[in-house]
């Protein structure tokens, strides 16, 4: 359901057929208006303001977490980074998958830290940071990670 806070009214109500695990909001390459993207069982669907389906693609297994981020430095358009239950992090540019990372457990959370840098957390207690294609570091702890937050807080760099 989409709700207009300022007008205090519903915008639309829509039932996604194959379940709903996560939502993301942003602009897709090649589509003018911003979309609400819903990650379900094996599929990702994008809806516009009028609840029209503007975008559809497939992933393996349940899409667990999604984030829009400028993943490449090449252009300013946003890519969609999707973490799913088949241990993979996939990067979509429009409907096309441009990169695929295989991890060793279910992806729990993906959070954008800054431009083309994101943190990820797995169900087995691993967490780490990717800079585009390259993993900067990862760590594993005995206690399980439940949530991440990217902080674009200026330190020394």
């Amino acid at each position, binding site marked *: 359901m989409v709700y207009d806070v300022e007008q205090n009214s519903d915008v639309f109500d829509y039932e996604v057929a194959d379940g709903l695990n996560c939502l993301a909001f942003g602009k897709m390459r090649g589509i003018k208006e911003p979309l609400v993207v819903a990650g379900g069982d094996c599929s990702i669907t994008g809806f516009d303001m009028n609840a029209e389906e503007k975008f559809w693609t497939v992933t393996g297994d349940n899409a667990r977490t999604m984030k829009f981020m400028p993943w490449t430095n090449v252009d300013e358009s946003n890519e969609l980074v999707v973490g799913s239950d088949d241990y993979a992090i996939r990067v979509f540019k429009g409907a096309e998958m441009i990169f695929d990372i295989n991890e060793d457990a279910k992806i729990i959370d993906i*959070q954008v*830290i*800054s431009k083309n*840098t994101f*943190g990820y*957390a797995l169900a087995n207690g691993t*967490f*780490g*940071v990717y800079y585009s294609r390259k993993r*900067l*570091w*990862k*760590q594993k*702890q005995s*206690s*399980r*990670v*439940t*949530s*991440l*937050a*990217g*902080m*674009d*807080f*200026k*330190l*020394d*760099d």
Partner: protein
Amino acid sequence: MCLAIGFDNGTIEVRKHRTGDLVSTVKLNQQINGKDNPVAKLFYCDYRMQGNKQVVAVGKDGLIQGYTVAISTSQIEA
């Protein structure tokens, strides 16, 4: 830039995004029954609308704790 990580034992860690070095660690207050309070969700937002963002942690029992981020920490400069 930093990554804040919430654990199921209530610990919140802040690590440098480039190296993974630990910058700071805090633990959520325990639940009334004395058990650890797992982090349900972390946010990084300007919750108090004061112009600076803070880390807000929501615990499993509904506890909400906010942490401001200070720049004058010796660990950060190291």
